[in-house]
């Protein structure tokens, strides 16, 4: 089979990329999705708060993805469900598996990677010994409760204050469970402030910073955990241990981009984001393969996923039509002084429409800072932020004119005290 554009993953990223590629004149599009339905992880995110930026209203996860599924259907964009992509090579040949016809191959004119992310589990519990049942990731619990209608426990402790953990603290409370506490090993939360207010404070659920689980009790089913305070090196402080009775421990310790396929295609992966290195059009290091959404870097707001995916869809369309400039001028971006990473990592100003929205994350909580953009030691742009935190992605728009006038091939993003 030959297709102009193949999109891997039918979550919000894949759907938005498909719609935008279609809007840019590409009709031969195929979305491959391994699940029974389109919508990705948003199907299980039944809470509201999605879409404020894109639609100006607060939607639930399924409502947000339904808007894009509707568009995909209206535009007659083709998709295959229950279809798992097994491999991609650098010449854009895709191998996939579907229960009906077995393994098949597609030669694609362009590819958009939109496989999302998965939950971290490893390293969250450095505790020897057996694992009783009742320990699961917050995302798995979210799926059980919201999609299967199955309550996973009655007395709950949550390890990690990531957004999914916070959302699940409220969800389990509403369904009658007693959520005893949320433990965060760091001195700050990686969750959105909004979620701390509406999921914990509203229900009087305590959040303990600098705390972790040091022991697990119970043979078949979890019976309790020992929690302890940690020092500045994240080592448990002797004498601070406390026993907490619980039958469920939810892990909410972060997400990691899903890039097995990308690695197989020889795509350059950033050691910091764990996602592909991308340019202004969301093209990866392999020509004609684009990427967007959580597969590139973990987003906390789906609205930004959508924005980024529009770029990927448009970039892929331009590539197919031969309109993507390959000029030699490439600016590399770099984070310094508290800025952990910047996406996109490479910019060719010729391919920028009006401006580039740079996304970045900081490595700690800082108050009263400037995010400064520098080239050759000169300040290109400076924006003030009252507070920045690793849990909330920052973004800065830079106009094409400014990018065109940069002579040096490096653009440095740096934090500076105000």
């Amino acid at each position, binding site marked *: 089979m030959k297709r102009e554009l193949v999109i891997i993953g039918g979550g919000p990223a894949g759907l938005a990329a498909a719609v935008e590629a279609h809007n840019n004149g590409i009709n031969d599009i195929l979305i491959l999705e391994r699940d029974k339905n389109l919508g990705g992880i948003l199907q299980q995110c039944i*809470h509201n708060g999605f879409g404020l930026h894109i639609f100006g209203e607060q939607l639930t996860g399924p*409502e947000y993805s339904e808007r894009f599924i509707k568009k995909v259907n209206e535009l007659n964009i083709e998709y295959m469900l229950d279809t798992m992509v097994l491999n991609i090579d650098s010449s854009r040949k895709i191998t996939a598996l579907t229960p009906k016809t077995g393994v098949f191959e597609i030669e694609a004119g362009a590819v958009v990677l939109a496989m999302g992310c998965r939950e971290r589990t490893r390293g969250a519990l450095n505790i020897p010994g057996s694992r009783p049942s009742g320990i699961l990731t917050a995302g798995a619990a979210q799926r059980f409760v919201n999609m*299967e*209608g199955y309550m996973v426990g009655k007395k709950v402790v949550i390890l990690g204050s990531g957004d999914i953990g916070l959302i699940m603290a409220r969800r389990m409370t*509403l369904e009658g469970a007693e959520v005893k506490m949320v433990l965060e090993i760091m001195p700050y939360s990686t969750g959105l402030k909004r979620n701390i207010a*509406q999921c914990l404070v509203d229900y009087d659920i305590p959040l303990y910073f600098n705390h972790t689980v040091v022991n697990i009790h119970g043979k078949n089913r979890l019976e309790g955990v020992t929690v302890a305070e940690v020092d500045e090196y994240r080592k448990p402080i002797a004498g601070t241990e406390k026993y907490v009775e619980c039958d469920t421990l939810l892990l909410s310790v972060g997400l990691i981009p899903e890039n097995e396929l990308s690695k197989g295609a020889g795509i350059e992966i950033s050691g910091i984001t764990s996602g592909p290195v991308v340019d202004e059009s969301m093209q990866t290091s392999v020509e004609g393969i684009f990427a967007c959404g959580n597969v590139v870097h973990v987003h906390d707001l789906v609205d930004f996923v959508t924005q980024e995916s529009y770029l990927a869809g448009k970039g892929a369309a331009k590539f197919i039509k031969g309109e993507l400039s390959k000029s030699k001028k490439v600016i590399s971006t770099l984070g310094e002084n508290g800025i952990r990473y910047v996406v996109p990592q490479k910019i060719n100003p010729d391919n920028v429409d009006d401006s580039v929205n740079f996304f970045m994350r900081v490595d700690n909580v800082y108050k009263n800072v400037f995010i400064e953009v520098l080239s050759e030691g000169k300040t290109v742009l400076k924006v003030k932020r009252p507070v920045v935190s690793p849990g*909330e992605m920052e973004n800065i728009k830079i106009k094409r004119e400014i990018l065109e006038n940069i002579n040096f091939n490096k653009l440095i993003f740096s934090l500076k005290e105000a």
Partner: protein
Amino acid sequence: MSKTNITCINCPMGCPLEITMENDIISVIGNKCNKGKEYAIREITNPTRIVTSTVKVNGGERPVVAIKTQDEIPKKLIFDVMKEINKVTINAPVNLGDIVIENVLNTNVNVIATANDKVK
């Protein structure tokens, strides 16, 4: 005089708001825009929330379907509304936007489906 500290949740800025009540006069500091002030006053006088959950479905592809209160309801009614939601079972097919409970607990707010479920 009473002081309350909350976080504004109306946009990702999440401004820390300090609300002071003195002789029925409410003053707010920390908000970067007017929305924050309005929110602070509402939180002190009549806090409201959207409730999202699921209801059981008969004969659908999925055992449950996602729902929400179409508008915000008083915060103090959250658990009572949850009780009403948990009494309900609906029949497939379910379409996004279908009314699941009309005027729940006389709040003038409907509970509606936020996802689809086909007949199995």
